[in-house]
C-alpha cells in the first residue's frame, strides 16, 4: 500500500513541476513578446542574431534539405513503382518537403545548432554575473538578449525553410534526373504543376513557429541556468530537448489545424 502512495506522490510532484514549468515558460514568452512594443529596441543585437541564427544556419539546413530531397525521391520511386505510379515522384517530393520535412527537419537542425548555442551563451553570462551587470547598467536583459534572438529566429527560420524547400526539391530533381531517368523538363513541370501556394505558405508559417520555439527555449533555459559548468551543460541539454519535442508536438497541432478536413 505504501509503495502505491509513494508512486502517486512522485507522479503528483512531477505533474505539478511540469505545470509550473509550463506556467513559467508562458510568462517568459509573454514578457518577451511584450518588449516588442516597448522601446528601446536593440537593432544591433537583432542584426547580430539574424546573422548567427539565419545566415550561419544556411549550410546545415541546406545540406539537410538536399539529402532529404534525394532520399525522398528514391523512396517514393520505390514505393510508387509497386502501383505503376512512378510519375508522382516530383509532386510528392515537393509536397512532402514544403509541408512537412522542410520545416520539421530544418527546425530540428536549427534547434540543435541555435537553441544549444543561445542557452550556453546566456547560461554562461548568467553564471559569470554578466546578466546582473546588464541590469546594473540600466539594460533590461529581456530586451537586450531575449527579444532580439527570438525575433530574429522567428523571422529567419521561415526564410531558411523556404531556401531549404528549393534546395530539397533540387536534391529530388538531381536524383530523379540522374538516377531515375526522369526528363529534366518533365520533372520540373510535374513539381510546379502540382504544388500549391498553400503547401509552401503552411510550411513557412510552421517555420516561424519553430523559430520562435527554438530561440525561446534557448533563452529560457539559459536565463534559468544553474551554477557552474554543470548548470550551463544542463541548461543547454534541456533547451535542445525541449525545443525538439515542442517542434514535433506543435508540428502535429499545426498540421491538424491547417490540413484536417
Amino acid at each position, binding site marked *: 500500500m505504501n509503495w502505491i502512495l509513494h508512486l502517486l506522490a512522485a507522479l503528483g510532484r512531477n505533474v505539478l513541476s511540469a505545470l509550473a514549468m509550463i506556467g513559467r515558460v508562458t510568462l517568459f514568452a509573454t514578457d518577451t513578446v511584450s518588449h516588442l512594443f516597448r522601446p528601446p529596441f536593440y537593432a544591433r543585437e537583432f542584426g547580430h542574431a539574424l546573422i548567427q541564427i539565419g545566415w550561419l544556419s544556411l549550410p546545415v539546413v541546406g545540406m539537410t534539405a538536399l539529402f532529404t530531397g534525394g532520399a525522398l525521391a528514391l523512396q517514393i520511386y520505390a514505393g510508387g513503382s509497386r502501383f505503376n505510379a512512378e510519375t508522382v515522384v516530383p509532386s510528392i517530393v515537393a509536397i512532402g518537403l514544403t509541408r512537412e520535412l522542410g520545416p520539421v527537419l530544418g527546425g530540428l537542425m536549427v534547434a540543435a545548432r541555435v537553441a544549444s548555442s543561445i542557452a550556453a551563451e546566456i547560461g554562461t553570462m548568467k553564471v559569470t*554575473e554578466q546578466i546582473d551587470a546588464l541590469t*546594473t547598467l*540600466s539594460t533590461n536583459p529581456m530586451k537586450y538578449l531575449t527579444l532580439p534572438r527570438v525575433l530574429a529566429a522567428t523571422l529567419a527560420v521561415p526564410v531558411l525553410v523556404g531556401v531549404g524547400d528549393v534546395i530539397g526539391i533540387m536534391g529530388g530533381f538531381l536524383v530523379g534526373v540522374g538516377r531515375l531517368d526522369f526528363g529534366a523538363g518533365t520533372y520540373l513541370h510535374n513539381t510546379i504543376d502540382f504544388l500549391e501556394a498553400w503547401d509552401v505558405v503552411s510550411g513557412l508559417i510552421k517555420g516561424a513557429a519553430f523559430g520562435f520555439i527554438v530561440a525561446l527555449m534557448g533563452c529560457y533555459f539559459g536565463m534559468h541556468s544553474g551554477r557552474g559548468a554543470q548548470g550551463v551543460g544542463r541548461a543547454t541539454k534541456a533547451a535542445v530537448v525541449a525545443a525538439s519535442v515542442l517542434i514535433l508536438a506543435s508540428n502535429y497541432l499545426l498540421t491538424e489545424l491547417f490540413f484536417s478536413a
Partner: protein
Amino acid sequence: MIELKDVHKAFGNNRVLQGVNLKIETGTSMVIIGGSGTGKSVALKCILGLIHPDSGEITLDGKDVTKGDRDAFLARFGMLFQGGALFDSLPVWQNVAFRLLRGSLKRPKDEAREIAIEKLRRVGLTPEQADKFPAELSGGMQKRVGLARAIAAEPEIIFFDEPTTGLDPIMSGVINDLIREIVVEMGATAMTITHDMTSVRAIADNVAMLHDGVIQWTGAVGDMDNSGDPYLDQFIHGRAEGPIEAVR
C-alpha cells in the same frame, strides 16, 4: 544615505538575511566583512534590486528603492563585480562605455570612446588595451576594466563585490589604492564587500560585520581593533578558535 531596515531574505530553508539593519552615510566608504556564505553579496544585490528581500525596507535618501523610476535609480550606481562580469562579445572600450552607448545616458560614439579611454587611463590601462576583447586580458587587467566601467558614468554610489579576489598581493594593493583614490576624488558613496582584511584597512571609513544573518558589529575602521567584540576579533585575526564555528 543608504539604509537597510530589518531586511530578511531566505532561499528555501536557508535564511540568509535575518533582520539586517545598516546605514551608509553619503560620501563615506562602508566595507561589509563576513565569512563566505554569510549573505554579503545577497545584501548588496538586495539594494540594487537584483534580489528582492522577503521583508524589510531599503531606502536611498529616504526613498524606497523598489518604488519610482528604476532607470534613474540605477543610473546613480556603478558596480564592480567579483569576476569582472565583462561582456565577452564586446571590446574593452565598449564594455567601459556600455552605459554611454545606450539608454538615458547615451552620447555620440566618438565621445563615449574618448570617455572610455580616459577612464581606462585612470585605472592604469593604456589606450592600446581599448580594442582588445576581455578574454585577451589578465585577471588584474579585467578587474581594472570592471573598475573603469563602474566609474564611467560618474556614479554617486559605487559597489565593489570582492574587488581583490583572485589577485596576487601586489595587484590587490594596486586595486585597493585605486578604489580609495577614485572614491575620494569622485566624492562617491562606496560599499565594498570583502573578506580581505588588507582591503578593509585600505578602503574603509566604516566597517560592518555580517554574521548569522545580522550585522554583528559596525563602527569606524579605527575602532575595529579595539571593539571588544569576540566575533569581530576572531574574524580580523583569522583565528580558528572562537565563537564563529570553523569547519575543519
